[in-house]
């Protein structure tokens, strides 16, 4: 029989997080013995939609997708479902489309909440904060921001966000923005960042001013951030287990495509955790840092 082919689509291969996700999808596809069609949404909903459409023409047997935007990708996913192609979503859940085979994810909102809670635990008596947000309008940026505010808004009196700016998920921008923030407001107690790149940028800015005791939190648990956590430079980073998500998603999709095996659970939710110095071993990519 012909080898099965599945589409693996991620939102933006410009970011290491999604590169890792696609690599894991690739590895699992290989392990399962199926062909993989790769798709990079290039940070554009129409592009990711177009890729799905192209895959449908080619009659792929299943789709594993981390949607750039849950709303904007819904029509394309709906189309796939209508065409009878099983779809497994990763990371971000698409509501309102009937018939999605399964969702495997760790909610970004939950991740943001976890990040803020870790900070609260480190400063039980309150703290002055900087908050570096992601690219305005991007889904993960919105959700992570929401999570952070869900926790901190009720605690406004104790935890003041004295400086809140976007640094577009970029290291260079985070460095500049943090420099401006430090010059304007002096040293904060902690800096919460919507991804690791920005955390590493903020770290450089603090190091340049010799503010070595600022607690900086990142997001994504990239190997580079894990090293910084190990060395005590970052206070923590949020682990969403993208590799596990990806592999699970591929397994579910392939099983169904092979012999219509229904997944045990339609909704696999992994709880994001904050990786600190003491639980480094929980990090998915720790082995890459050696």
């Amino acid at each position, binding site marked *: 029989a012909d080898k099965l082919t599945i589409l693996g689509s991620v939102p933006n*291969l410009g970011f290491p997080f999604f590169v890792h996700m696609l690599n894991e999808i690739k590895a699992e596809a290989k392990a399962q013995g199926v062909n993989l*069609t*790769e*798709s*990079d949404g*290039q*940070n*554009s*909903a*129409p*592009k990711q*939609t*177009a*890729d799905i*459409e*192209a895959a449908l*023409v*080619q009659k792929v047997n299943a789709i594993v997708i981390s949607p750039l*935007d849950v*709303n*904007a*990708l*819904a*029509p394309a996913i709906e189309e796939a479902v209508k065409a009878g192609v099983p779809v497994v979503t990763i990371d971000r859940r698409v*509501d*309102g*489309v009937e018939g999605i085979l399964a969702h495997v994810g760790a909610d970004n909102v939950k991740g943001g909440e976890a990040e803020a809670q870790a900070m609260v635990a480190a400063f039980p008596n309150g703290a002055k904060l900087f908050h570096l947000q992601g*690219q*305005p*309008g*991007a889904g993960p*940026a*919105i959700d992570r*921001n929401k999570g952070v505010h869900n926790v901190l808004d009720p605690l406004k009196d104790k935890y003041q966000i004295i400086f809140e700016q976007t640094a577009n998920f970029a290291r260079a921008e985070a460095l500049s923005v943090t420099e401006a923030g430090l010059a304007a407001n002096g040293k904060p107690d902690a800096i919460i960042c919507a991804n690791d790149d920005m955390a590493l940028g903020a770290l450089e800015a603090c190091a340049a001013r010799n503010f070595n005791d600022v607690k900086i939190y990142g997001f994504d648990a990239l190997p580079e951030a894990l090293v910084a956590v190990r060395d005590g430079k970052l206070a923590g980073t949020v682990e969403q287990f993208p590799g596990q998500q990806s592999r699970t998603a591929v397994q579910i999709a392939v099983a169904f495509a092979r012999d219509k095996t229904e997944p045990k659970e339609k909704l696999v939710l992994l709880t994001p955790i904050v990786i600190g110095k003491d639980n480094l071993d929980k990090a998915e990519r720790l082995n890459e840092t050696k």
Partner: protein
Amino acid sequence: MTSTTEQTERSGINIARLLMSFGPLMFLAVLIVIFTVLKPSFIDPINLFNILRQISITGLIALGMTFVILTAGIDLSVGSLLAFCGMVAAVVAKGGTANTLSLSTSGTQGYGWFAALLAAVVVGALAGGVQGFAITRLKVPPFVVTLGGLTVFRGLTLTISNGGPISGFDASMRWFGTGLIGPVPVPAIIFAIAAILCHIVLRYTRYGRAVYAVGGNAEAARLSGLRVDRILISVYVIVGFFAGLAAFVLSARLNSSEAVAGIGYELTVISAVVIGGTSLFGGIGSVGGTVVGAALIGVLQNGLQFNNVSSYTQSIVIGLILILAVAFDRWLKSRVRR
């Protein structure tokens, strides 16, 4: 005195013209053949209609951009303006910014697709007009004004929606993005009609010829009695209108207006126009060329994706082919010339 000019060799000119206009088209044909050989399902009607639907969004804007570039102008703001108009359309369609999440197609309290469409194109045209005004009255070069616009409209869009998308339109609106007439996607039909209209306007109306004249030599056009400023403003209104129309179609297609929509579209759109043979120095170009340019980009993206070319390699190939397509066109023209 009749002898001042020697006998024109008309035939030479005609062959030249023919070849010239076929430069990008030949390139497009070659690409299609290559992709089909690589994977025959490439020319499935379904896939071809997919491509048509995919190029219709940037294609619509490229039609408007053709007017702008013909006057030797440029509009970098189209991507942001698209997002802005899309957000306006969403607010009108849904009667507010609050209801951003429900994907349910019922229960929207807005003003319907027609009002949304109207709002999108009017806002787009107005925004274009304001930019045109800054260009002609404040004498700021189009590059600068629309670069400012790129930033401003994005900021406005984010402000309206507070960063998030506004999603979930009713079926009548969604039809403009996802519907079919026979086997043909509605966006492709909208694009085709718009292209034909633009072609007629540019080729067969006094206004269209004035656009070419202004781009050919603005000072001479003024001395010849054309209202250069008005014409300049009008082309920005036109491209704004098309950004609005494209925004409406895109929102309908994605069932969602996103604050991050259209990022980087300016470059895709300008590429389409330029590959199609329109000169960035103004005065030379055609709608037909732009359609071919847009198709070339669409076919390239789809074909590479179809063949599972890695996304990084895609970038490299697309960049090189963009340059090659234009180089080939130049070469054809110069072959003909010397």
